């Protein structure tokens, strides 16, 4: 069908700005994704959004989920005290109030945090949400039957270390007070200026005690958000969400809730998901994915096609892939050896192994390259693009290995986004030039995970990665470099086994700050200082590129999650 010339001109004008389109916010006439006759791109209510995923929405119980900022699909059902700011880019890495009226009022040394709930908050059945429900939601996350989540609640709340959950321990957590139905107070063990970030996690969702069914709760959790769970098949294989009529937009500035129904399907192969989103036929035109990225092969196909390239959302999440050293194992106890390897690394071949420069950015710092982390650019051991073999050899000579060195690199055999075997071989190839012979030890994923996270079996030289529980230097640096977080008989993430008093003191000092910008600067400075010890070799930060269907509107990608926020999307 031939389009009238007026429309053609508007489409042409819009396509010029398509270059900037990736991840554009927008609602309004200059929206970059002009579609169809008339190019109407204002989002409207209605329709069904399909979500095509590889992984199921497992354990859809707020006590068990381990999310960064409340999750994508979960935050449609589980509102929390605070949540992430749903805006593009950097602005999206901030905390904003959700059920609460503000992001929390701390006492002088940030050991007591007080929140007040907004008025008029209701569950999907019309009953009111109270702070007692939030307290109960947090308490039940301690039950052994509902294991999962991140360790912060257990570590931060006073007296919570041995708490067994409400099914066994009727007394409850004394660290949480609810003086009335709209006020809640948290008592912490030590100062935590970043408590508002923690309050975005699903454990802070209200759960009515009368409706708690323990391990069965995930089949129909009571919704406080704009959608309620209508079907949950086979532990999250298929999740159907419909509008929660008792949710009111006036109490929720963050979620737009345009579609009437959301159908989350999983178990699909990732290449098939990308094929379907490319073809965008039938219901797929109103489809997105919340867990499947474009791989390098698909990226190659997409960059050649203008129409497809316009439907790719690009985002960054706080994540670093790196090489870790265990300084208790020879020869990695010698700092010069670690530095030599840092100089010898060829980041361009590692980046290529990870999918190319569009999908991975070379990293020389441990913190991700975003302002919210306090990113401070440094490159203590400049290897250039292709590695500095000469400098590496020189350092090895100084360390006493003039004739070269043979080491073993441990990696996982799992083919995942980080493509560990290919990255390991890229490193093996690069270090050859510096006279370092690398033997590869590939382990099955579970075995690998066991070995690297146990102080007793940690290998000397292995691939690792770390993601941000929230966009700040705290959860990025503390578990990895705080000596007090070394776990002797369990899962340990301080792989460098660093226990430096000055580092620990600095971490405590920064945790006292409630001014998050000031804290970020100091985290960045701390990262630069720790980087001098060459306990890790940062390799790259991944970039997430995802396709979405033809009819999807209002694509918002924050720097917090790095992916399309499903609460903002419209299909009409």
């Amino acid at each position, binding site marked *: 069908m031939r389009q009238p010339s007026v429309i053609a001109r508007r489409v042409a004008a819009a396509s010029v700005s398509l270059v900037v389109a990736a991840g554009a916010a927008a609602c309004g006439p200059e929206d970059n994704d002009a579609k169809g006759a008339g190019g109407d791109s204002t989002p409207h209510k209605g329709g069904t959004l399909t979500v095509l995923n590889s992984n199921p929405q497992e354990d859809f119980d707020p006590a068990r989920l381990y999310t960064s900022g409340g999750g994508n699909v979960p935050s449609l059902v589980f509102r929390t005290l605070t949540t992430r700011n749903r805006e593009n880019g950097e602005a999206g890495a901030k905390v904003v109030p959700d059920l609460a009226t503000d992001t929390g009022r701390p006492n002088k040394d940030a050991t007591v945090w007080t929140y007040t709930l907004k008025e008029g908050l209701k569950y999907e059945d019309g009953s009111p949400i109270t702070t007692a429900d939030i307290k109960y939601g947090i308490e039940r996350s301690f039950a052994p039957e509902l294991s999962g989540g991140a360790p912060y609640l257990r570590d931060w709340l006073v007296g919570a270390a041995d708490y067994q959950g409400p099914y066994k321990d009727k007394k409850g957590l004394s660290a949480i007070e609810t003086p009335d139905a709209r006020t809640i107070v948290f008592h912490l063990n030590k100062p935590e200026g970043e408590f508002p970030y923690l309050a975005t996690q699903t454990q802070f969702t209200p759960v009515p005690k009368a409706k708690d069914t323990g391990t069965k709760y995930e089949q129909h959790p009571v919704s406080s958000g704009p959608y309620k769970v209508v079907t949950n098949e086979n532990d999250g294989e298929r999740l159907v969400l419909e509008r929660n009529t008792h949710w009111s937009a006036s109490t929720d500035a963050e979620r737009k809730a345009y579609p009437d129904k959301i159908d989350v399907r999983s178990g699909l192969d990732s290449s098939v998901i990308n094929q379907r989103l490319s073809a965008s036929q039938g219901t797929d035109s109103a489809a997105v994915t919340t867990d499947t990225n474009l791989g390098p092969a698909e990226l*190659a*196909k997409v960059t050649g096609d203008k129409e497809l390239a316009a439907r790719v959302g690009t985002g960054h999440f706080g994540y670093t892939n790196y090489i870790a050293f265990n300084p208790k194992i020879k020869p990695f106890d010698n700092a010069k050896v670690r530095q030599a390897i840092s100089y010898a690394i060829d980041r361009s071949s590692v980046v290529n192994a990870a999918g190319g420069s*569009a999908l991975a950015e070379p990293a020389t710092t441990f913190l991700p390259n975003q302002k919210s982390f306090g990113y401070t650019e440094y490159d203590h051991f400049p290897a250039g693009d292709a590695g500095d073999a000469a400098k590496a050899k020189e350092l090895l000579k100084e360390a006493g290995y003039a004739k070269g060195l043979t080491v073993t690199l441990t990696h996982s055999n799992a083919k995942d986004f980080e493509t560990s075997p290919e990255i390991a071989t890229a490193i093996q190839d690069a270090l050859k030039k510096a006279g370092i012979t690398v033997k590869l030890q590939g382990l*099955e994923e579970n075995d690998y995970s066991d070995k690297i996270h146990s102080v007793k079996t940690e290998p000397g030289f292995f691939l690792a990665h770390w993601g941000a529980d929230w966009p700040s230097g705290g959860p990025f640096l503390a578990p990895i470099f705080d000596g007090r977080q070394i776990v002797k008989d369990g899962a340990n993430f301080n792989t460098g086994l660093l226990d430096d008093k000055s580092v620990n003191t600095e971490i405590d000092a920064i945790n006292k700050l409630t001014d998050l910008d000031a804290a970020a600067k100091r985290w960045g400075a701390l990262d630069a200082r720790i980087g001098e010890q060459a306990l890790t070799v940062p390799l790259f930060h991944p970039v997430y590129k995802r396709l979405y269907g033809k009819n999807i509107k209002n694509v918002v990608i924050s720097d917090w999650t790095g992916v399309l926020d499903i609460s903002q999307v419209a299909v009409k």
Partner: protein
Amino acid sequence: MPAPGASGARQFWRRLRTQRAALVAAVVVALLVLVALAAPLLTAIEGQDPTTYHPSLVDSARGGVPIGSFGGVSAEHWLGVEPQTGRDLFARLVYGARVSLGVALAATVVQIAIGVVVGVAAALGSRWVDQVLSRFTDVIVAMPLMIMALALLAIVPSSFPRPVLVALVIGLIAWGNIAKIVRAQTLTLKGLDYVAAARLSGWGTWRIARRELLPGIAAPVITYAALLVPSNITVEAALSFLGVGVKPPTPSWGQMLTAADVWYQAAPQYLLLPAGALFVTVLALTVLGDGVRTALDPRAASRLRIGTGRKREAKA
């Protein structure tokens, strides 16, 4: 009537030589084996090796697509380069032939050995022996490949050469079909006249098995074995797909197929090369298998003379 198989090796070769298609196939198979064995020599001539990365030969911004036409074909890289890594494809293909053909052949030998022994024993033995062996075969067949592979991989230390382990895993798991076919065929042959005649003449069970039955089951076994080799290559690919195959940077056709799968649209030659190589292997092995089977069966000569369609085959 002389018992089949009593004709001897010379007649076998004579009959094999008369089939042109089989001869061509034999040459192709020999060539493949030669290429696999001479892989280091061939890659030295080309001046490449299968593990060196060439990041400059791929377009990093576009996901690592090889630069240049036909996937980067040039005088230095005869078949182009691999996406993302820039490794030479010709080198990876010929080194991959070693691993794939080697693993597949070894696995096939193991499968045939175990399958024939179990199948014949089940068919000739007492009812109780048959039951036990058949149920044992059931257990092995029922055990999903993945579990067995993981089990063995977990138990065996990682210093054990991986290709050998993969060959053993495939061999030990997948002999069930051969055993079934052999058992079925043996049961049929057991009832035939010449076997009864041999029995009446007083021949012992194992003598009968060797001289009367084995040639009889040779036909379906060889036919199936010809398909087993390429099928084992795809099983090795499946194991790579599930993450438990040969370990990088060792190339194998199976691994290449697994990795090349998604590149079908952006860099089709990456998929077509190992797929094509595998197809040629299958074709050659199948035709050769047919020829060998025909040559083993003296009655085939008379059947060929009667003909079921093509006159020119009858040349014995």
